[in-house]
């Protein structure tokens, strides 16, 4: 009888405590990167917004982004131009109508920086990111988090910050703000299952 009471009390206590433990499961930076490093391949649709304060031109582009660990990142644009850009550690391949190019990453350091940072993030390579950036990690309600990268090397002459937002182990958006005031934001969304299968 006494054993029965003890068991009931324990069940009650556990059932009361569980919501608290679930709510306080704030992800740590190392855990986040560890979880990211487990992802070997992924694809998401993206919306890319850009603003150029000098020319006062804002643009929005749509497409699908493919990632394959550790070195492949491909952006397939659907609108406004159909074409693709493939990033690898040494190369940027451009494949657009009337424009097929293969460029060394050294030729476009800013673009290379963006793709490389993105790849390091998707690879969960925290050590490499820490080499070039100061990292500020903040969590928020609903298991959300925000990672702010501030360049510490020569990139600080061009780039102000890179802000990454997400929740749990998902990346929702990446915002690159340049010293010149230009910004570029990529928002990632899951692809509906049907579309992904077709793809």
């Amino acid at each position, binding site marked *: 009888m006494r054993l029965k009471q003890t068991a009931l009390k324990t069940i009650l206590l556990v059932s009361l405590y569980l919501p608290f433990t679930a709510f306080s499961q704030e992800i740590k930076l190392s855990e986040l990167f560890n979880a990211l490093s487990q992802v070997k391949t992924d694809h998401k649709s993206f919306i890319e917004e850009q603003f150029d304060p000098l*020319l006062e*031109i804002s*643009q929005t582009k749509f497409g699908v982004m493919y990632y394959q660990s550790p070195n492949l990142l491909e952006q397939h644009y659907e609108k406004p131009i159909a074409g693709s*850009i493939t990033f690898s550690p040494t190369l*940027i391949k451009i494949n657009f109508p009337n424009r097929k190019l*293969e460029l*060394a990453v050294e*030729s*476009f350091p800013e673009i290379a920086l963006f793709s490389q940072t993105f790849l390091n993030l998707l690879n969960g390579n925290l050590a490499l990111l820490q080499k070039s950036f100061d990292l500020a990690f903040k969590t928020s309600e609903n298991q959300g988090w925000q990672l702010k990268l501030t360049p510490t090397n020569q990139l600080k002459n061009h780039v102000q910050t890179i802000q990454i937002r997400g929740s749990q182990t998902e990346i929702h958006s990446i915002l690159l703000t340049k010293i010149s005031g230009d910004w570029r934001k990529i928002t990632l969304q899951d692809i509906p299952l049907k579309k992904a299968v077709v793809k």
Partner: protein
Amino acid sequence: MKMTNRQINFPSLVWIFIFIIAWASLVAYFNKSPFQNDITQFFPNQQSIEAQYLKNRLTPSQKTSWLMLAVKTNHPQQELYEVSQAVQAQLLKLKGIKQVLNGSEPYQSPLQQSPIPKLYRYRYLMTSFEPAQLSSQIQQRWQEYQLGFVLDKHWLLDDPSFQWALYQNKLKPSQQLAKENGVWINSQHAKALLLIETEKRPAVLANIYKQLELTLGKNNFELSGADWIALQAEQQIKKGVNWITSLAIGIVFLALLIAFRSPKLIFFSSLPLLGAFSVGILSTISLFGSMQLITLALGAILLGVAVDYPIHTISAYQSKKISVVQKIWPTIRLGALTSAFGFLMLWWIDIEGLQQMAIFASSGLLSALLMTKALKPYLASHYKISEIVSSEKPINKVTGQTQSLYFVRYLLPGLVIIAAVLFLKPIQWQDDIASLSPISKDLIQTDRQLRSLFQYQEVGKQLLLPAKNIEDLLQHEEALMAELENLKTSGSIQQFQLLAQILPSQLLQAKRQQNLPDPTTVVTSLSHAVEATRFKSTHFQPFVNSLELSRQLPLMTYEKFIQGNETSAQLASQRVLSLSDQFIGVISLSGVTSDQVIEEFVQQHTDLGLIYFNQRKLVAEQITEIRSGLFQILGFILIMLGISLWLKYRNVRQVFTVLSPIVMAIGLTLATFSLLHISLSIFHLMSLMLVAAIGIDYSLLFFEGAQQTEHSNEWSRSIRVAFLTTLGSFGILSMSQLVLLNAIGLTVLIGVLWVYGLAFLISKKPKPIVKQC
């Protein structure tokens, strides 16, 4: 206080060496680079444009060295661009490497450079701006802008037609090499291409090769470049020369040891040679300011005769009779003086390298003679004979009873044989200097292949275009450009480079300037061009301003152009040459498939004075000229010997008796080469001068020895020792794989054999009757 009255009494030999050391110290103090390696110092001073151009292009002017490198993968799964990047990274770690280019170098915006390139504002005059294409160009920029591939927005707005990029491609042709994965790749040959700029130090070049060999493996790369080839040649020469010269010197010392059986005497006999080298070098540097290494190498061969003087003198002392020494010394002196004055004749060939050789060899021989004389007290002491003058009177007159039979028996048949052989089998001359080069055919082939891969101009494939001034030159080049493009299209040439591509004539610049649209027209064109984009015509105000500025710019002159930056100055120096009162445009050609087509092209433009520069042909012509000069000098040397002998004997027949073995030996050596089907070069001819110098000693000593009533054995013994040392050392040289050493060794070997044999025979019969005074 007591004053000492003792005089320091140094022997003359010591004084000579003190003098040489003091002289060497002064030369070393005042001359920081006493040795030079400039092959142009051996070229005749021809006035033709080609000759002057050749001399100019062979003069070393670059401070750094450029190497071409082609690599292939050593693992099937490895990508070429990965190898290229890895090799670049590894080479950059080495000391002495300035830069390694593989095509992945970032393209920098001119506006982000500090300072902005001076030529940037001239872009609309340096290149052809086509207003009609502005619309499509703006469309293209918009696409790049959308994709985020804009290097510098300010540059885009200032130069939407990318005139600066077009001009850069002309300035740096290597940027046009095909790329794969962002690096230069030749897909046809599956090779990644890299350009390496290094310090001009052999150690740095050798280190690069070592590193590549270690990283890639010997068979996975090809390396070439002018300095690399020079280093290889130097190493091959060193390899070939070191052991063979050591062996030759060893043979000389062995022969001396057998003959004199005394290390002390070997030491004595080496002193005149040492003095000859030292004084020869110091005289040349003092007179010319520096000495060419080729002079030193070839002059050293001529000085080989100097070792004979102490040999003859020591042989005379071995008789332990001062009378023998007194008799033999004037003969040695005469031989040395005539040889020295003979070599001095090289001065009259108006080529600085040979003039240096004249000073080096003649001053060296005179020093060797002086030092041999200074050795006499030591030799007297060694052989314990008194240096007092012998009461035995030397023979000072030889009666001329040489019979005419001598001419019938020896001279006439000899001359007939020589004439017959040379008539039936004329001498084959080898004037192609490349055939004497120690550079292996593989190395030359590799260089040719790499030049083709890099689309570099081939060595010796240029068109030369003379003009009174730069403007005329540029206009003439512009007139030729369309036809050169046709040659390119037809596949007769792969590429061409000329000055007008990077600096248009003032006439063309003015025409371009006049054709530039005014601001109103530009704005109208822009407003149409931006229609399908989200650019606004106002965005391109910097471009409108730049065009307007270009309309008012003073035209670019050649002087301003070369002051612009290092690249333009360097390119200009390669594409134009200033010669006294005219300018020579150099049009470099690469991938020439047919010389005949180029010759025809030149024929069609004789009105412009266009010349096809054929380096090999030109060098061969110059060598022919040197050869003819050397032949004349050889003749002068023989005449000089004849005059010297006349002054001694005052008897034509005796002069002929001594001289004829030398003349015949030279003739028979040439005939021997003809019979052996060996082509002769200028080095064979120079070696014949040494044969003459050695020959006069043998001939004189044989002739004088034959007159002696006693101790004639010492005379013939002295010649025998000298003959064997010469035979041994030059016999070894004749076995060398190096064409140059082989030529020298073989000529002296054959020549000395002939001169020794003839001088011996002629001195024996007919024996002249000696009359004592």
